[in-house]
């Protein structure tokens, strides 16, 4: 059991590092670390983040948006353990600034090539990078869905 965990941990850590690098244009560095590497189940799992131009910090001392970036990378890294045929994500860009939103949408777009990503978003930055867009609205007390023109060229 411990070997299975360590093997999964190492794979998730590698994926986390490359995702975080993508989210920081290669200028930042993120890593996961076991509190107790010899007996992993007797310690927790920490996350260390180094954003460009800033010193390394732990998850706990990051800003709202920095935690959001790290958490999205952590979730996407976990997804790689059991790859699934589709992913549905609801407003994962809520706390990201414009640049981080752009990087996340670009990252999802590249990951979606062999897969299916369905993302709910209120942000133009994300919407404009999709292959297709659906608009949900209320009419006569019920939900309707229409196809919206997707833009191949992003607005920002």
């Amino acid at each position, binding site marked *: 059991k411990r070997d299975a965990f360590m093997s999964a941990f190492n794979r998730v850590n590698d994926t986390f590092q490359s995702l975080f690098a993508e989210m920081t244009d290669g200028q930042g560095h993120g890593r996961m670390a076991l509190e107790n590497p010899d007996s992993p189940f007797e310690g927790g799992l920490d996350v260390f983040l180094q954003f460009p131009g800033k010193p390394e910090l732990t998850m706990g001392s990051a800003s709202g948006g920095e935690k959001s970036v790290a958490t999205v990378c952590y979730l996407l890294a976990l997804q790689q353990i*059991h790859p699934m*045929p589709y992913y549905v994500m609801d407003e994962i860009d809520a*706390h990201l600034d414009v640049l981080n939103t752009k990087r996340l949408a670009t990252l999802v777009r590249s990951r979606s090539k062999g897969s299916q990503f369905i993302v709910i978003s209120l942000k133009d930055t994300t919407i404009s990078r999709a292959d297709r867009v*659906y608009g949900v609205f209320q009419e006569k007390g*019920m939900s309707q869905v229409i196809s*919206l023109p997707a833009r191949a060229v992003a607005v920002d």
Partner: protein
Amino acid sequence: VFIKRIDIRGFKTFSKKVSISLDRGFTVITGPNGSGKSNILDGLKFALGELSPKELRGASLSDLVHKSQAEGARSAHVAVQFENGDRRIPIESDLVTISREFSKGGEGIYRLNGRRMSRKQVQDILSSADIQVSGFNMIAQHAITRLAEIGSEERRRILEELI
């Protein structure tokens, strides 16, 4: 395998049937607050067999049936059509449709390509394609905010439970 279409009627804010045709790649769903976006995700989980109404943000299963001033109690019906050319779902069909209907009477009916099946049968067939009702591939609204605050112990436990 990927989701080709979702049909929703009588479920939460969806009254008359709405069809959403999907494809591979990157799809974005947008719209005003309260329009029904998250309800689509709930509908997908419902069709795949989610048993806990709390997971679907409802007080009870009856709570999920569209409440409207005009008509009386109806049934909630969600159908998910999968593109199955790669036969990851062990059914001899290019298109596999899983549907679930729940009437306020309390009956829940699952169907695969129109044929009635038990929930367990549907779950077993779907799991061969790695399709489950809940998993890290479905990220609910506010999941990021909650996960951003977990402690180091819980973070390790999450990984443990995934293996």
